[in-house]
């Protein structure tokens, strides 16, 4: 049962992807579409293979920007969520501001961030942080507030300290929320890093994509794009695996 489910989850989308690639390949060949407009899958694959070292070289800084930005968002976002969830004063004072800042388009502040943090990795990291921060704070705060009242009451009945209640009850109860926020955040972090690289950078996949595009090397641009997607999927999977490892009880539910 489990295995057939797994195969279904893998084989069906895989078959769909292969189908799309085949149609795409056929279309570009049959109608002799210019490689500049739409490169064929095989030429993208060629480019990916031929330029694998270049791609890897540019993957590294982008990956670091994402991980640092995402990590920073977790490290700063979770404590802020804890404060907001536990203090009425902080909640009333800062939560509305926090939400208001979310209406500021991150693309629009990217140039400003670049002015502040320079053209190096720091500016991308900050932009990745800014986009990843919000879902982490909101989901964590929601999770902390959603702790079943009965559990807190039970702990109080045994005179658990606020710290014990937090570490033993509130935080584990919020973990599923934190992870769903983290999964959104990590994909957003990739977008943030690429925005930063678009606005100004010397390296990174976003930068490579722009350069390839301006040189009309469309297959390479597509190769960079696909590498970026793979990077996003990889980061998402890493968080999903961490979730499975840290919350074994979630997958063990049978009904």
């Amino acid at each position, binding site marked *: 049962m489990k295995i057939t489910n797994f195969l279904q989850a893998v084989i069906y989308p895989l078959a769909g992807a292969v189908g799309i690639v085949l149609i795409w390949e056929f279309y570009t060949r049959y109608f002799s579409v210019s490689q500049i407009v739409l490169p064929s899958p095989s030429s993208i694959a060629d480019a990916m293979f031929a330029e694998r070292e270049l791609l890897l070289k540019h993957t590294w800084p982008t990956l670091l920007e994402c991980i640092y930005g995402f990590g920073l968002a977790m490290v700063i976002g979770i404590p802020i969520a804890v404060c907001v969830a536990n203090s009425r004063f902080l909640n009333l004072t800062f939560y509305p501001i926090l939400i208001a800042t979310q209406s500021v388009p991150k693309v629009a502040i990217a140039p400003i961030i670049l002015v502040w943090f320079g053209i190096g990795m720091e500016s991308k990291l900050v932009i990745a942080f800014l986009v990843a921060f919000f879902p982490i704070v909101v989901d964590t705060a929601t999770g902390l507030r959603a702790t079943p009242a009965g559990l807190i009451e*039970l702990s109080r009945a*045994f005179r658990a300290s606020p710290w014990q209640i937090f570490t*033993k009850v509130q935080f584990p109860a919020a973990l599923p929320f934190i992870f769903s926020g983290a999964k959104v955040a990590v994909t957003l972090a990739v977008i943030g890093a690429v925005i930063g690289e678009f606005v100004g950078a010397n390296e990174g996949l976003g930068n490579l994509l722009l350069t390839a595009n301006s040189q009309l090397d469309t297959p390479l641009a597509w190769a960079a794009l696909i590498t970026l997607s793979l990077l996003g999927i990889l980061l998402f999977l890493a968080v999903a695996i961490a979730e499975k490892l840290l919350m074994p009880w979630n997958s063990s539910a*049978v009904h």
Partner: protein
Amino acid sequence: MAGGAVSFGHFRNVRKTFPRPGEEPLVSIEDISFDLKDGQLISLLGPSGCGKTTFLKIVAGLVKGYEGTVQIAGEHVREPHPDFGIVFQQANLMPWRTVLSNVLFPMEILGRTGAEAVEQARELLSQVGLEGFEKAYPPQLSGGMQQRAALCRALVHKPKLLLMDEPFGALDELTRMEMHDLLLGIRERTGATTLFVTHSISEAVYLSDVVAVFSKRPALLADFIEVDLPYPRRQEMRYSSDFVELEHRASRALGISR
């Protein structure tokens, strides 16, 4: 240590109001007085919303600012007491902990972890028929099994007073009857003094030494029914004339029948 003549639980003119913005305060409990003797099981029986939970939480030290006297073992109750065990209507198990670890939670908070605590928890689990489920996670258990684990958690630190708030209210009839005998068996072994909140007349009569009938909100004591049926109770007793007579008396006190 209260024993013999001095009652274990001493409740006099207990009154509780909740402030309401722009209105008269809501009187949840008007005036409740009774005594709970050492080892006794008293049910608090009353209609929904009459203040039973509020009363139980006052005794548990979870509700502040009541009027009157609430003493347990000679001490005024003002805050939670680690010598109490509590079971709520919801099992309230932590889904991220195994059954065993859930049962050990109170010991963890009380700083009494160790091989002895684990032994005690395992012993309790086997007593309620959960042997072999120590490593299971709560979502894998049925409602009745979850409530049994919750009962073990309430008993693991050998509390002097067991407080139960409609613990079997969410269970089906058959499971509930099983749980009644389970609870009475445990009580026989541990001798824990128990306050048991319920809105089921037959449950109250079946389990208790005394049924304290609460009136509609604001709660007054409508009747204080001594159940002189012998322990151990047997399911057949539910159909005896004495039992039915007691149920009738409780029903009259509740104003349901005449």
